[in-house]
């Protein structure tokens, strides 16, 4: 039982990452009708926003310390981060410590700009092209983006730790009457779960309660009519794309402490997030969220030793297996609409 609870926690956490990426993906698909294979790259760029901010905060003044030597025997250098000079050592250190949460503020304008440029510069010209062309050009873009990141940051993962206060883990077990250490869960993962819940709620609220959101929802349902109403749908689409990019980017920023960002993390998530979107039903926002959590939990369960003992290798294929079964039994995914992407 404690094992199951533990895996549900894990599943929720994995699921919230899947759900966030899939949400942005399906938002773009639903409003713009574009299949964006570069969405994983947006997630990756988000994570690298956290890396970049960490680097910016660590910009240092360099002095030499003649009493020590470096590996070549030259006088060692001492680096003092500029923020520590400005705000005093303690304050400066805690700013650096909190670089990941701060990166949220840093990432929003960057991701919005990336989204804006992508939509205006490339995606816009592909609205009328076949879905296959959209998939392929964004796939090409994803390769280019990740290679650019690799050229600047290298191929190795870069550690981006969470603030000191959120390191370590919380013992649920003792509260629930199990023995100590039975159900432990890292604080930062709980933060991640809460954060994604907030983002998901914010996106839904935005679409539900603002005029802008209503127009976009109408556009998702029937694009032509909305266009005929004289509403400048193009501008709204650009904004929607930027929002979707922000959602993916923020998912990436907050994910950075969970796994050190590397340049191919986007591709690693891409296929999974597509499976999530399709299982949820193309163009369905609640479907994407539901499928994200569902697949996350199933994946967590499949990696339990008890399950693996019965089906060796099941954790390697569970997601795909579930996807196949769902697509075959529910032709439009869990909550998809009729006629979308079937031709």
């Amino acid at each position: 039982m404690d094992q199951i609870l533990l895996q549900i926690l894990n599943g929720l956490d994995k699921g919230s990452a899947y759900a966030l990426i899939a949400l942005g993906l399906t938002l773009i698909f639903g409003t713009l009708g574009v299949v964006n294979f570069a969405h994983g790259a947006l997630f990756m760029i988000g994570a690298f926003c956290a890396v970049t901010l960490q680097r910016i905060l660590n910009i240092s003044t360099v002095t030499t310390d003649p009493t020590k030597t470096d590996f070549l025997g030259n006088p060692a250098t001492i680096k003092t981060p500029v923020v520590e000079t400005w705000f005093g050592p303690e304050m400066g250190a805690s700013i650096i410590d909190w670089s990941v949460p701060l990166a949220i503020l840093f990432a929003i304008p960057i991701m919005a700009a990336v989204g804006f440029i992508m939509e205006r510069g490339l995606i816009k010209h592909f609205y009328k092209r076949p879905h296959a062309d959209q998939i392929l050009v964004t796939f090409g873009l994803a390769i280019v983006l990740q290679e650019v990141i690799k050229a600047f940051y290298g191929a190795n993962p870069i550690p981006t730790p969470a603030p000191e206060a959120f390191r370590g883990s919380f013992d649920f077990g003792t509260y629930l009457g199990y023995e100590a250490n039975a159900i432990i869960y890292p604080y930062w993962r709980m933060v991640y779960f809460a954060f994604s819940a907030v983002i998901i709620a914010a996106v839904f609220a935005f679409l539900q309660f603002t005029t802008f959101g209503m127009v976009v929802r109408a556009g998702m349902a029937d694009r032509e009519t909305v266009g005929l109403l004289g509403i400048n749908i193009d501008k709204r689409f650009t904004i929607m794309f930027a929002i979707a990019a922000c959602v993916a980017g923020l998912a990436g920023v907050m994910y950075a402490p969970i796994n050190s960002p590397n340049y191919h993390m986007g591709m690693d998530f891409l296929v999974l997030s597509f499976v999530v979107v399709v299982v949820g039903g193309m163009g369905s926002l609640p479907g994407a969220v539901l499928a994200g959590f569902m697949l996350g939990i199933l994946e967590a369960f499949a990696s339990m030793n008890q399950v693996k003992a019965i089906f060796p290798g099941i954790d390697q294929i569970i997601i795909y297996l579930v996807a196949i079964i769902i697509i075959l039994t529910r032709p439009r995914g869990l909550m998809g609409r009729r006629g979308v992407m079937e031709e």
Partner: protein
Amino acid sequence: MSTSNLTRRGLIKNSAIAGAGFAAPTIFTASSAAAYTNEPTGGSVTLGFNVPQSGPYADEGADELRAYELAVEHLNGGGDGGMMNTFSSKELTGNGILGKKVEFVTGDTQTKSDAARASAKSMIEKDGAVMITGGSSSGVAIAVQGLCQEAGVIFMAGLTHSNDTTGKDKKANGFRHFFNGYMSAAALAPVLESLYGSDRNAYHLTADYTWGWTQEESIAAATEAMGWNTVNKVRTPLASTDFSSYIAPVLNSGADVLVLNHYGGNMVNSLTNAVQFGLRDKIVNGKNFEIVVPLYSRLMAKGAGANVKGIHGSTNWHWSLQDEGSKAFVKSFGTKYGFPPSQAAHTVYCQTMLYADAAQRAGTFNPCGIVEALEGYEFDGLGNGKTLYRADDHQCFKDVLVVRGKENPTSEFDLLEVVEVTPTSQVIYEADHPMFAGGALGSCNPGA
């Protein structure tokens, strides 16, 4: 650079060598008169540096390339000579190899056995390389080693740690200067015993592919021999990025040590996840919970950041070693590139030097001559102390470093500290050890 092969003289030279007409069927060779594959006929000899330039190990590959370029520079008489000056053999004089200038071609293995073989083939078939070297994973090393055996060129393995490379997949034309899973385990076990005692319960997480399996087998056998109990061995998919669902059940399993048989990105993520779950702050069975990473790489440890602190593992070589060879190499490399070399860089530099020296001593580039020169060869001065290239399996035997993540690093390179240098005598094994059984070395193949 101001020389170009597109000069008139180059053309004349080339046409002077070439005669028209059909040659007899040959394998991979450019001329039927050659005694072996790609016998160098001009004033230069070409080596093939086949390293991962794309994919997750690209940074390791880039470091290997730097070391190769440095080695070629030294062989051709440039730079400060590096470890050529400390090497016990004094055959090399900075005059190339056998008087031929050393040239090289590079390729991308992509860390895929297919792509690595394709790249190596193009070096052999097109560029006339007499030796292929490099790589950053065992699958690639074994695949390329097989190719070199068939093609009749020498393979000087780069970073490969699986027992199989010089075990069941060993080949006469292949040599490995890197240590292996068994040696890691043999070196680590006594250190672990003295640190954590002999009454421990170990939980293994293992990357689900060839290297992971041999690493797990080795370390489990070594720790069980000193009294540890193995609670569970769990395989994790290679493509995993989030290990939480594998790590979460560890604490509750009664284990008090977690062994991460992971490398590269897997290691970074699983270690980061394990520390996140607070495993190291826990007390289980009345003992502190410990994590062990049998194979460390400094480049990868950097990706895990502060999480490596206090965690033990083994490594082939580390730049902080204070022997003359290591110091010369670090100085030479650091001066050229501005940072200390990685173990991958050290390995491939040594491999290039060893090949060059063997050719020099044998007086030929013929693979059979090189094999003869390297088999049973004992040398010193390339870091790691006295080293033996064993004739039976072409595995190098040298000291193994047990290292620990440093608590207070003084620079971004200063991540590991050497805890113990385990002498060769403790890590050597019989050539027919069961973990290495099942293959045959065969005989050297000169190609033609």
